[in-house]
């Protein structure tokens, strides 16, 4: 495949292609006589002008959607979904589509560089041998306990490789972190599962088979866990059954994109989710008759409704709807979990599901299966664990830090002090593909390939069928980058001894094959008798997965028996507004450097290319704030400035802000654009160790400045602005 094209040939091809595409309707002399250079050795299955398709895995988030990438003459042209992959069944989200603009991004790290923690991307390039020597020295000359690996959210082959390495040399296990995990409060969900089901795992909500769905703040149509799969599930829930249209209710303080698709959006006071869930449970239990389960005994629906600012009749009506439903389902998520009582929210929602008796039934709650070749569920680090890690770094407990696939300087709340801690680490080696904030604060950047140029596999965390999604390069690397796995393998070989013994592999592919060996002969989407044909199929189909779902049924007994103390969440800070940060549905955590993702209109506000603060128009007018006025949001931890968007569907006591912009580095499209809500987040955690990111109260100050937000929508046509009311 593309290995047979030399990099030089590829570049030439690319230039020739660019030249031909650059001149279109006009006929400049440059376009008239292009040179065309064929492949040095034409792969026998390609013809000029005909596309070749490669199956791989999307690396834009950790959901492990399968992709099929159309390539033509060594260039990746278009991303399609892999119809075989059970996670996304041929579909993609906007971020997946735009991954090509990451591959061909003008601001990639093109060479290994000695960054030396400069403000700009260093121009001091190294060759790869020197880079490997540096990594090898760092591994060999540091006490294993003082080496740390910080990785992205994806449970992929690199994580396995680094884990193996760490285990073999006695270093601490690699830490995985990502802003999406933080804003999804994954630790809380898995802790709730552990508490109630006795097993730390991700609960699986069978959305597609449910008929009445109530969600507490879960943003499953945006970025939550596996948005493409959940969107498909939502569509099936809505229209899959021709007899009955699925009914969907969302409890959330602001109308998120997910809530905008709800039949009923019920704005509740932030922090009262568990109260409402328990109250609903009590109402349901009462409606069903029989003894009141202990879980719901201590809540008073009337006061709970009053606390939440919801009418009791609404709760009663919903309770009736749930009782009558054939397949009711309640989902927790998003900001509801990111509060001081987030664990209680998760647990009370699971208890509510238990009460509804949907455990293990279609449209109900399950426990996610482990992915193939996985020994246990390794959830990403919670913010609390990151805080401990930061403390270790600050105390000099980390001498060498390897960072790959994560940008904590940008993603973690500034208040936690990751940047300062990073400064206390003597040697930081980044493997970033893009010059992000963390990479710039490193000593060296040894850039990894872009996801579409890499080998690998990735486990699907949330999937009914255990999925190991396969990745392969669809094009030859565009820049002088090298797979981080290869760098570690080479460095380990160079270091010799236990390092070489830990990783006795010729290259990344050999390592991957060693992991795939255990699947040879397994029954699944395909079955192969030996490793070479298994690998070939694995690449051809874009991964391996079982043919049947492998969901486990949790036991309802514990959930329903747990006694909850109904209490609203506590909020940190003095301000008058609840602060509700959410991940931008279009940008995600790392989409800001792709121009087309910037150009996409946010689904609810239609804002492009910037950050905004959502505020109820009534509240804003009381404060004398208009659209596009820049306000300063002040919390106990910090402050941030952004223009106001008067959002009609948000509680008057809540302001919301999308996460994803506010980069100070990360390329020309991202840097210096918008603001980062993480700057105002404090260091409060819930019982599961997740950041209570929605547990802040903030003050809003006018700055007197304005910045006109670019919106796709018309302010005249949608809000009647500029028209005197008749």
């Amino acid at each position, binding site marked *: 495949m593309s290995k047979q094209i030399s990099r030089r040939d590829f570049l030439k091809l690319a230039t020739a292609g660019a030249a031909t595409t650059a001149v279109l*309707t006009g006929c400049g002399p440059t376009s008239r006589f292009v040179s065309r250079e064929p492949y040095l050795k034409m792969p026998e299955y390609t013809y000029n002008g005909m596309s070749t398709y490669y199956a791989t895995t999307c690396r834009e988030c950790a959901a492990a959607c399968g992709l099929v990438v159309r390539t033509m003459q060594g260039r990746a042209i278009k991303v399609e979904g892999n119809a075989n992959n059970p996670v996304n069944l041929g579909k993609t989200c906007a971020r997946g589509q735009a991954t090509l603009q990451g591959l061909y991004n003008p601001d990639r790290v093109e060479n290994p560089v000695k960054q030396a923690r400069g403000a700009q991307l260093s121009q001091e390039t190294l060759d790869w041998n020197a880079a490997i020597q540096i990594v090898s020295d760092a591994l060999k000359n540091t006490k294993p306990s003082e080496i740390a690996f910080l990785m992205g959210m994806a449970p992929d082959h690199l994580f396995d490789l680094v884990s193996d390495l760490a285990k073999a040399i006695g270093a601490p296990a690699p830490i995985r972190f990502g802003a999406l995990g933080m804003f999804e409060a994954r630790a809380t969900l898995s802790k709730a599962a552990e508490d109630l089901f006795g097993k730390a795992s991700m609960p699986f909500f069978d959305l597609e088979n449910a008929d009445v769905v109530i969600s507490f703040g879960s943003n499953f149509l945006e970025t939550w866990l596996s948005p493409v799969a959940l969107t498909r599930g939502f569509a099936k829930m809505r229209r899959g059954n021709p007899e009955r249209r699925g009914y969907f209710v969302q409890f959330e303080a602001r109308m998120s994109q997910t809530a905008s698709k709800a039949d009923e959006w019920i704005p509740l006071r932030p922090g009262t989710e568990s109260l409402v869930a328990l109250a609903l449970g009590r109402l349901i239990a009462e409606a069903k008759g029989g003894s009141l389960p202990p879980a719901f005994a201590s809540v008073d629906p009337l006061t709970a409704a009053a606390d939440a600012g919801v009418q009791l009749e609404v709760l009663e009506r919903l309770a009736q709807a749930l009782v009558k439903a054939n397949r009711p389902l309640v989902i927790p998520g998003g900001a509801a979990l990111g509060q001081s009582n987030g664990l209680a929210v998760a647990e009370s929602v699971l208890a509510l599901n238990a009460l509804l008796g949907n455990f293990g039934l279609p449209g109900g709650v399950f426990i996610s299966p482990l992915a193939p070749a996985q020994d246990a569920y390794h959830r990403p680090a919670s913010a609390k664990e990151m805080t401990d890690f930061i403390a270790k770094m600050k105390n000099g407990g980390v001498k060498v830090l390897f960072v790959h696939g994560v940008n904590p300087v940008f993603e973690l709340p500034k208040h936690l002090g990751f940047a300062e801690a990073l400064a206390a680490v003597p040697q930081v080696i980044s493997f970033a593909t893009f010059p992000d904030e963390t990479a710039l604060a490193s000593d060296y950047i040894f850039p990894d390939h872009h996801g579409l140029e890499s080998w690998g596999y990735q486990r699907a965390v949330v999937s009914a069928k255990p999925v190991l999604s396969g990745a392969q390069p669809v094009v030859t690397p565009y820049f002088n980058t090298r797979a981080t796995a290869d760098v570690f393998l080479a460095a380990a070989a160079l270091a010799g001894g236990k390092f070489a013994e830990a990783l006795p592999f010729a290259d990344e592919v050999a390592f991957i094959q060693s992991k795939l060996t255990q699947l040879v002969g397994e029954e699944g989407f395909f079955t192969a008798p030996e490793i070479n044909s298994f690998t070939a199929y694995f690449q051809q189909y874009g991964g391996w997965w079982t043919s049947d779902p492998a969901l486990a049924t949790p036991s309802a007994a514990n959930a329903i028996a747990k006694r909850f103390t109904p209490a609203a969440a506590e909020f940190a800070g003095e301000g008058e507004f609840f602060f509700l940060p959410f991940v931008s549905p279009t940008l995600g955590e790392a989409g800001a450097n792709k121009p087309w993702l910037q150009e996409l209109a946010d689904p609810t506000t239609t804002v492009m290319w910037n950050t905004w603060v959502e505020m109820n128009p009534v509240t804003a007018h009381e404060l004398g704030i208009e659209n596009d006025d820049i306000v300063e949001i002040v919390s106990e931890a910090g402050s941030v400035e952004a223009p106001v968007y008067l959002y009609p569907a948000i509680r008057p006591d809540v302001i919301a802000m999308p996460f994803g912009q506010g980069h100070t580095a990360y390329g020309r499209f991202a840097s210096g654009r918008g603001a980062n809500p993480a700057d105002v987040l404090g260091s409060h955690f819930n019982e599961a160790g997740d950041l209570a990111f929605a547990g802040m109260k903030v003050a809003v100050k006018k700055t007197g400045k304005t910045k006109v937000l670019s919106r*796709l929508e*018309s302010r*005249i*046509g*949608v809000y009647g602005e500029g*028209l*005197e009311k008749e």
Partner: protein
Amino acid sequence: MADHKHHTSHEEHLREQHLMLDPMPRGKMNEMVMESMHTTSWKFWLVFGLLAALVAYALFYKWGVMILEGLGVAGVNRPSYWGIFLVNTVFWIGISHAGTFISAILRVFKAEFRRPFTRAAELMTTFGLIQAGFSIFMHMGRVWLSYWLMPYPNQRQLWPNFHSPLSWDLLAITTYLLSSTMYLFLPLIPDLAMARDRTPDGTWQKVFYRILALGFRGTEGEWTHLRNALNIFAFAIIPVMFSVHTIVSWDFAMATRPGWNSTIFGPYFVVGALHSGMGAVVMVLAVVRGTMKHMKYFIRPEHFEAIGKLMLIISMAWGYFFFNDYIVQWYGGDKWTKELLHWHEAGPMGWMWFGMLICNVAIPWAILWNKKWRSTPWLLFLVGMLINVGMWFERYIIVPISLTINRMPFTWRLYQPGIEVWLGIGTLAFFILLYMAASRLIPLIPVWEVQEGQMAHSLKKYGRETVVAVSDLE
């Protein structure tokens, strides 16, 4: 007039007032016209130079920038795809209307007061059309391919789309430009011959006049042919003139846009064009009278007064058509049209809508009723200017402001002019520049027409009454 006690003074008064009754020897008059062309102060050249610089910068340089960078430097957007470019196109075509109107219609109806200023008006037609052409070409995204709009046989077997109002427009404007230039040129021939005979040999002007005068010597046969040709042209150009602006209006009326899809647009645009055109004529006459030598003899308050009356009537007609257009659209009850009418009045550009009504109706009606006021050149200059502002507002309301409102409220968006302001200024400067250049080269007063009129007019006495008699010239 009749109150004067002494006949002699009454006669003097009539002569003073009316150019036609105040004859002057042919030679003297020729002399005066030639002198008016040749008397040029440094101020003229200063203004000329400034305008030339402005044209070079605002029109050609800025246009070049726009061609190179694309229309993004202008203010056009979705949904206001047509901006000031089309406003100016319609505006300049409107300006160009009055020239032909005054010249041809008044010639056909034998309105004698037209005689001294037909030329000035016809020049406006030609120069205005040139600016309209500039504006429409600026408007195009790929102006270098504009020749594709012309029907010409080609090897690709492609033709322009004759369904498109823009194709009709192009043909109509081209026809109008050609015919109005011819119509300007024909009556110019005797005056060019006069200028030729009064220009010393060996100068380039002599060559210029000699070529353009086509060897006119003033024989009886030549005069007969000229008169015949003029009569034919005067009749023929009137339908062309009406068709041009009707077709321009069809650019809008044939579209599916709310607010544009109006059957009254044809006459409404024609009357609007005359309205602005008359305003422009009056402005030009006031300037010419005030700045050029001997012009106070040719252009007198009586002419302003006569044009003032015309303006008043046209203003009323415009008011009628405006009302008609409004009421029909309002009564139609279409949701989007109603939205649009509301937007016109109550939107952020509502001041323009009211400004248009004040300039086009209120001010002319208030001032032009009074004979004394409408005989005052500077006041008429002011009124003409306000009418032109008002009519420009009208086109602005029809083009970018109406385009804001469409059937997709999600896309409604305000239009903010960009580089097209410079280009608009450039066309205005170019118009004035061309006019100034013409005033040094071409006799602005059709001497032969004035003399012909003066020969036909005489004062006769019936009893004690002095009466103006006009003999039939034909």
